[in-house]
């Protein structure tokens, strides 16, 4: 450092840069935060399915086809007119089970509320005709309760309801359009079991998105 002027100039530039970067990170973080309403986190996601609204509704009402499509991923059991039991399978073990009350509000609109699941949540699905004959937009709104600490741990562990919703919508689209959800985890490779396990972790991040 040649003189005090240079020293102050470097310090000034560093401070301005630090403040600027900090503000940019905070803005970005703010943009990526889910909306809060009355203590609920609210996320809205949508997917376009290349089928008519009747086709999308028909997929859910044809139980035989639905069960075949969901095989290996989840099982659905109807308990009564409005209550369902769902078990989502996890290849690594530790299946997740919850019961949900599903209410049909009208043609193409339904609400659900999880009664005893991993986290309090409720949501709404709306089916809307997509423009230009592109099929049907499935628009979902998910509301869930979570504390800041729990949410941070959820994000770190990849257990984020927003990601789960996006993943579920992608799966639903795929099931309706081509009858299966693609999975390459059991394709042959020249990996050892240890390498395969590490690769499966990478695959899961690439399937569901890691942190949003």
């Amino acid at each position, binding site marked *: 450092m040649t003189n005090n002027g240079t020293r102050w100039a470097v310090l000034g530039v560093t401070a301005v840069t630090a403040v600027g970067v900090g503000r940019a990170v905070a803005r970005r973080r703010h943009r990526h935060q889910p909306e809060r309403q009355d203590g609920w986190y609210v996320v809205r996601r949508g997917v376009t399915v290349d089928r008519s609204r009747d086709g999308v509704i028909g997929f859910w009402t044809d139980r035989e086809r639905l069960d075949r499509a969901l095989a290996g991923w989840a099982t659905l059991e109807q308990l009564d007119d409005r209550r369902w039991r769902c078990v989502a399978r996890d290849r690594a073990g530790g299946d997740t089970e919850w019961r949900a009350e599903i209410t049909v509000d009208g043609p193409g609109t339904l609400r659900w509320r999880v009664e005893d699941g991993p986290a309090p949540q409720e949501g709404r699905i709306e089916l809307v005709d997509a423009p230009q004959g592109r099929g049907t937009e499935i628009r979902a709104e998910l509301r869930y309760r979570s504390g800041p600490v729990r949410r941070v741990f959820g994000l770190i562990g990849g257990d984020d309801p927003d990601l789960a919703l996006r993943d579920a919508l992608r799966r639903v689209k795929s099931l309706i359009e*081509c*009858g299966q959800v*693609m999975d*390459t985890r059991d394709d*042959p*490779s*020249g990996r050892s079991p240890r*390498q395969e396990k590490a690769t499966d972790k990478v695959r899961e991040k690439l399937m569901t998105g890691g942190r949003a």
Partner: protein
Amino acid sequence: MRALCWEGVGKLAVRDVPEPRIRAEGDIIVRVRASSVCGSDLHLINGYLPAMREGDILGHEFMGEVVETGPGVRRHKVGDRVVVGSVVACGGCWYCRTEQYSLCDNSNPQPVFTEKLWGHSPAGILGYSHAAGGYSGSHAEYIRVPFGDVGAFGVPDGVPDDSVVFASDAMPTGWMAADFCGLTGGEVVAVWGAGGVGQMAARSAQLLGAERVIMIDRFPDRLATAAERVGVETINYAETDVLEALRELTAGRGPDACIEAVGMESHDVGPTYAYDRAKQAARSQTDRPTSVRQAIMACRKGGTVSIVGVYAGLVDKFPLGAAMNKALVLRMGQMHAQRYIPMLLDRLAAGEIDPGYLATHPISLEEGAKGYELFEKKQDGCLRSVLHP
């Protein structure tokens, strides 16, 4: 079974791996009879697209015989000789319905990498890294082909394996490149890259009506082969100023359409190329766009630049001003194999296109690493090494 696996940047080895199994109703298992190396594999092998995992099986351009079918398969039966499009397409989404198969919504089970990199995820591709779904490739004795009714096509009798294998990728890619040009008859088309795809693009442009095709490369043997087999004019960029030569050959207009069939490891001579190499080595740009720059600068006003060479990420010094002010049409993409393969098989059977000469080096699976080395270094006149597992 035996398979050629990626073992790290620049390293390949044949390993024993499990055989594939039917996983879904529409799957077929194909015993691979011919599987070609492809220039786009080099980007994966050399680590330019960082989505490979040790043990991944390479190969996406292949043909073979059906040995097992899922219960939902209707168009194929055991014993059928088939060629399979490299791109995996579900056949049920809007993109597949509109024949844009390489944009299939449902065939990449690991879409996050490409969604973050490109905004949306295109289709999965067999044997083409975890960015393209993590599917096992065709440099193996057997391969699982998802959506067999959509992606596999019966092969006409009498067409040899080493010809029909190129209907999997090089032919449809070349055809799509020419199709992008919107040729109506009488045009002058320039093609960068005299490899398999470039030569197929040149032949396709002729069949679609181009009056003259000019091919640009630096390897005299490749240019000579293209001149002899396809009937193109040639420019060796190591000896000639390409832009000057193209202006001269078109009496100042520039080519009506320019096809780029080189990709992200494009080569050139001079300081710009050194600059691109340095930036790519420092990972401050992922791709070297030398030939795209040339194509844009060479193309006539209002012409079309068609890009089928594979690019993965970011490029520097892209002449957007030239493209904008010359009102160029830029078209690009991975090929929609399933759209073009049936028509191309008919043309193969009729003898209108014969890509068999591209298979300069038929080799065994065990020689796969050597086959890639010959291909990458363009040694021994190698246009394509074709593996026979």
